[in-house]
């Protein structure tokens, strides 16, 4: 996030898109509700009418995967009405003329045709977002989990820069990260193209710095992303996989393909706090300690570091992740794993990561610190880009709309989109072992528009078969107006009827994120005798 979580309360306009905020980020939703009570306008653009949509001042459903088009449409209206922030554009950005040219063709009529958003609504959104004193954008997986995910994010960045709604408190472009420490794991380079602190592996000087710090020679080439690893197994290029706190068999797209790869792999290690579907396939399962059973830090979605403190001992042989990794490191003869505590690990992190350089355990006991925090007297950065962007000027990227990779056709006439429920988290590793949460929901279902339910000939709670080009699953039907005609929604928490057996592994060319949010499916009624 460019801005910190408490800042939402003071925003005048919050534009939420592709985020089921009350379900997936309830505490952020609570700040948004506070802003609303103070008079902020809440705008929700989402294909599905979720809880936060019912609390919004303006809610509109766009067609699946049409985000670049409506964001370009907003920018065209803003420019036409003169609602852009001319001084911000002049002083802080570059590439404005190219952007202007690129959005020119996105007339309200054309945008309505692509996105299904009425032109009057688009104009109202443009006006409120551009002319409010402090407007903030909130987005989540609905924006990123597309083959055009990077385009979608860059479009939102264009919008924020065009209106100068960035670089000030309660503004900005704010992706909500899922797990409590997913920001921390990204900061620490659980991505294949950078070293900790977003320092590129391809940069010679940086590589030398890490070679010196760790006392080993390092590769100048980026590694593989998750879906690429699975493909590499299939191609015989990857022989072993060490999976930590992830359940790719259920969470990756095209599960049948993943299952084949995991069955074929030579050596699989899974480290988790509970037994998962992926762990059942592993040669070695290492029990990890949960949040309450270890000391350390978490870095939240707004780049704030917080200390966690052990409340209870881990059960049986379970150990903290850092401890397991150090033991494995030492066992294979690695150097530099002689840490006695998480604090010692943290000291090395602060040493090699300029954005964490000024942070110590002692400081975060007493202070609220958001990175970048570059020295001991740096108070940290609740919001980014105050005086400049990382590369100096903010660069407008002209972007054209591209349709989803797989569109509905005769054989697969419906569009499937996936997401989460308030009562479960991701593949259910942690939540499906909770009696109170499974009491709420414990089976897969699909949401279907009444017209389509009539077409298929099903009633509420009847079971149907969903089929895509990649697989097939059965699920109960819930008939609702919360989804558009032609669209079906399915939560992906339930391994026994996994939505990801249907999803497509089409990847964004830059971020390599899969297109979980759109694919084509067919729906068939299951006769009583079959069900």
């Amino acid at each position: 996030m460019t801005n910190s979580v408490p800042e939402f309360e003071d925003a005048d306009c919050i534009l939420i898109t592709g985020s089921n905020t009350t379900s997936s980020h309830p505490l952020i939703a609570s700040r948004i509700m506070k802003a609303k009570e103070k008079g902020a306008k809440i705008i929700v653009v989402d294909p599905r009418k979720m809880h936060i949509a019912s609390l919004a001042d303006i809610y509109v459903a766009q067609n699946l995967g049409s985000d670049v088009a409506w964001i370009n449409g907003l920018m065209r209206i803003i420019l036409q009405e003169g609602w852009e922030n001319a001084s911000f554009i002049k002083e802080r950005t570059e590439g404005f003329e190219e952007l202007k040219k690129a959005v020119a063709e996105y007339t309200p009529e054309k945008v309505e045709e692509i996105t299904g958003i009425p032109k009057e609504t688009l104009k109202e959104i443009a006006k409120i977002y551009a002319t409010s004193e402090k407007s903030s954008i909130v987005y989540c997986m609905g924006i990123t989990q597309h083959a055009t995910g990077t385009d979608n994010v860059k479009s939102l960045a264009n919008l924020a820069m065009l209106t100068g709604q960035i670089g000030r408190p309660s503004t900005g472009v704010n992706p909500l990260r899922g797990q409590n420490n997913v920001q921390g794991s990204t900061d620490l380079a659980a991505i294949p193209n950078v070293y900790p602190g977003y320092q590129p592996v391809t940069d010679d000087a940086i590589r030398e710095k890490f070679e010196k710090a760790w006392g080993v020679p390092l590769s100048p080439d980026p590694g593989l992303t998750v879906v690429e690893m699975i493909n590499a197994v299939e191609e015989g290029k990857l022989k072993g996989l060490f999976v930590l706190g992830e359940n790719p068999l259920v969470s990756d797209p095209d599960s049948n393909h993943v299952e084949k790869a995991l069955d074929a792999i030579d050596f699989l290690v899974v480290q988790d706090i509970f037994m998962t579907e992926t762990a059942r396939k592993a040669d070695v399962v290492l029990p990890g300690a949960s949040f309450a059973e270890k000391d350390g830090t978490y870095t939240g979605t707004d780049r704030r570091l917080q200390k966690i403190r052990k409340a209870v001992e881990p059960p049986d042989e379970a150990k903290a992740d850092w401890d397991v990794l150090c033991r494995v490191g030492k066992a294979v003869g690695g150097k530099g794993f002689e840490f006695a505590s998480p604090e010692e690990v943290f000291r090395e992190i602060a040493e090699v990561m300029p954005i964490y350089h000024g942070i110590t355990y002692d400081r975060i006991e007493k202070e609220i610190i958001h990175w970048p925090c570059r020295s001991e007297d740096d108070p940290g950065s609740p919001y980014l880009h105050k005086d400049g962007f990382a590369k100096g000027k903010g660069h407008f990227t002209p972007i054209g709309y591209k349709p989803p990779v797989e569109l509905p056709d005769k054989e697969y006439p419906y569009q499937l989109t996936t997401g989460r429920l308030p009562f479960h988290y991701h593949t259910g590793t942690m939540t499906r072992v909770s009696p109170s949460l499974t009491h709420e929901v414990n089976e897969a279902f699909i949401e279907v528009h009444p017209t389509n339910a009539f077409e298929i000939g099903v009633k509420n709670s009847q079971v149907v078969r969903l089929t895509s080009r990649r697989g097939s699953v059965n699920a109960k039907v819930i008939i609702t107006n919360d989804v558009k005609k032609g669209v079906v929604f399915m939560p992906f928490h339930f391994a026994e009827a996994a939505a990801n057996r249907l999803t497509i592994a089409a990847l964004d060319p830059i971020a390599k994120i899969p297109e979980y949010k759109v694919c084509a499916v067919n729906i068939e009624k299951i006769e009583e005798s079959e069900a």
Partner: protein
Amino acid sequence: MEKFKKYIKELFESGEIEGFLGIRKNGLHPVPHLFTPEHPEELETLTIPDVRYPMTEILLTIVRKYPDKKLGIMVRGCDERALNELVKNQKILPELIKHIGIACSADLAASCRCAQPYPEEIHYGEKVAPVEDRSDIEAIDTMPQEERFDYWMSEFSKCIKCYGCRNICSMCFCDQCTLEDNDLIATGQAPPAIPIFHLIRAFHMAGRCIDCGLCEEACPAHIPLRTLYRKVRESMSGFLGYVSGTEGGEKDPLEFLGSEGYMVPSKIDEK
């Protein structure tokens, strides 16, 4: 504070209590803790911060596990009201629970709008004046009926069904919870059925709620739950003359319904 620690130590040594539910400092973080005579050194970390925890709710968990132990518990005015109600409902035995009283600071009393910010016997702190504030109830009572209805419907629509209000409440001591009854409130939906989810809870708070306000502090959706339950509390004292949280005397008059009064009648159950 040293005197207070010494007092607890003496209670341990004399055998008057076999455990003390208080708060310890974990780094800079105050957390509830069960101090025991086996580890008197832990009393060094004992602290009395200006924040509240659902101490009586935690006590219930401990009592379920150790029903015969003599326990001390750090009580503020609100905690004591909760303990009085738990005794009347036979959830704890008064002879086994020793109240160790804390008077709240003026700041805490003000932020809690507390009508009785101290227990009967005070072992720590100075008594401050009660805060009489009905402004929240008055603001809603003066709304036209239609507006008032819309107000509550809109507040209830924010609910994310986290059960935070119930889980933090020491008066929610039933073994089975009506809020989890699938026949009355469909599972798997957030917001939960409007308004019945919140009305059931409000009805159950009648004759029970001791007005500690922890439910409203816990609510991530900022629903003004305390205002609702304060109104119910007032109605109970106005119509039936019952003020929950007072020591001794009769049980909540609505208890004549018996424990089954809150359950779904079997006829409906069978359908």
